[in-house]
């Protein structure tokens, strides 16, 4: 016999609600963990290229260790094991927290993704000409200002394409949170399958969603890369796009 597709199940309100909630959770997990991992990964990258051994070695050690650990391990670790490592009162407070699964998933993906972000940012920072580092020092900027005002903005521009790839990857990794019962999109498709024994319909719709968002992220990253955010002024990270500027960049190619 063949599998006969029945799209009408997705119109059932309780099942559609599962999918919509799934999209919501997927977006929350992906967005927050990407944001946190960008900050964390950049901090790790700075530590790794910094002159201080006290910063560099722990960061190198951590990244080289964490790089070889599967994402799903972090998810299970932060959900099941982490509260046990804390003092009993803190542990049970975490366990009693209704949103703990969501938080554990976000922390796990942040830690997982930060490792890769740090590799990408580090490569970009090392690609900045030595002269530009020295120019920053020669202006009398403090190390912190050198990073926030010069090196990070310049680096992030050069590493936009690999960072965008990584972000898409992290977005898809949000599905790992299903193993700790976060009702995200993949979990929702499994739930629909277990309620209706019809998994293909919901899975196809979910796949379409993942593909669409990933494509949109890719297009957005390409536009950034093409010069849409050359006007990143100082640490305020203000992106300003000017049509004239874009048109000029476009006409050059």
């Amino acid at each position: 016999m063949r599998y006969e597709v029945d799209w009408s199940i997705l119109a059932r309100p309780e099942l559609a609600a599962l999918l919509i909630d799934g999209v919501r959770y997927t977006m929350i997990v992906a967005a927050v963990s990407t944001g946190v991992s960008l900050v964390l990964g950049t901090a790790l990258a700075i530590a790794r290229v910094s002159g201080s051994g006290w910063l560099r070695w722990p960061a190198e050690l951590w990244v080289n260790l964490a790089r070889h650990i599967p994402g799903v391990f972090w998810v299970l670790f932060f959900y099941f094991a982490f509260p046990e490592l804390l003092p009993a009162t803190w542990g049970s407070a975490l366990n009693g927290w209704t949103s703990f699964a969501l938080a554990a998933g976000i922390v796990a993906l942040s830690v997982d993704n930060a490792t890769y972000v740090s590799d990408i940012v580090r490569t970009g920072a090392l690609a900045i000409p030595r002269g530009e580092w020295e120019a920053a020092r020669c202006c009398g900027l403090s190390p912190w200002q050198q990073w926030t005002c010069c090196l990070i903005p310049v680096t992030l521009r050069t590493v936009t394409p690999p960072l965008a790839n990584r972000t898409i990857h992290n977005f898809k990794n949000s599905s790992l949170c299903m193993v700790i019962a976060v009702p995200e999109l993949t979990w929702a498709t499994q739930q629909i399958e277990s309620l209706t024994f019809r998994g293909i319909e919901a899975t196809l719709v979910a796949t379409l969603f993942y593909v669409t968002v990933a494509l949109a992220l890719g297009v957005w990253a390409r536009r950034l890369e093409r010069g849409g955010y050359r006007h990143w002024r100082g640490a305020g990270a203000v992106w300003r796009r000017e049509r004239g500027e874009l048109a000029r960049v476009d006409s050059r190619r």
Partner: protein
Amino acid sequence: MPVRRPLSSLFALALAACSLPAAVADSVLDRVRESGVVRIGTGNDTPPMSYIDESGRWVGFDIELGNALADRLKAKVERVAVNNKTRIALLANGQIDMTVSNRSQTRSREEQVDYASPPYLWTAKIFYAKQGRFAGIGELAGKRIGVNQGSNAFTAAAQEIARYGGEAPQVVSFQKNAEGMTALRQGKIDAFCQDSPIIAALAGDTGGSFAAVGTGFSPGLYGIGVPPNDSKWRDAVSFALQDLIKDGTYERIYLAWFGPAGRYPLALDARPRLPPDAFGAMMYVWPD
């Protein structure tokens, strides 16, 4: 079965890749007779029904029952690991010949696949929580209830709690029973809801600090699933099962697992039996 609908070409293409060219013209019985192999779908993480023990062997009530059935059918077992979510689809697609995997008969499942007769075990859903924390099921309103994804406890637990009124519970579905129990022990959920025999095994690990809340609810019967629309095969499996009941094999397996001296003694007799005052508590099999 649902009505076939016109599909857009994209999905038709995608589905062509997904659906299997099953087209079983003959009965599964013919194929099993010919090859001497029967493909049985069982779970691997659900003590006491079907699991893999410390030494790596498949054990459990369902495993032994499946082996005995295969013996009866004069076929060798090819074991296919299934979980609560895949067992129906694999059966409906014809990738396995039967499921013996703690599956209650439900209406929605009956729409997809068929069941051999008779069903072989009584179960009830049980809420399992810290001893003494909840006096009754009504107190579970608004609490976090863990279930195994794919178990019909997802629906049944919420319905049962709703009968007592109060706030709807937050149902949390885990991928494995063991994960749900860990979550219960750590306080991530307030109660775990599963079938009574499975709870009996899980309770064995917790050393008495956990207990059932209230009584069992949503009674169900475990049945052996077979592919839909193949009555020849379904009858063969039913006959084999009834033979096991008649010759005492079923009784032996039951006592070994759930009898008073078994591995996981059940408080209530889980054998589906006829009323004792009328028939002397015998199990029902089809007369010749």
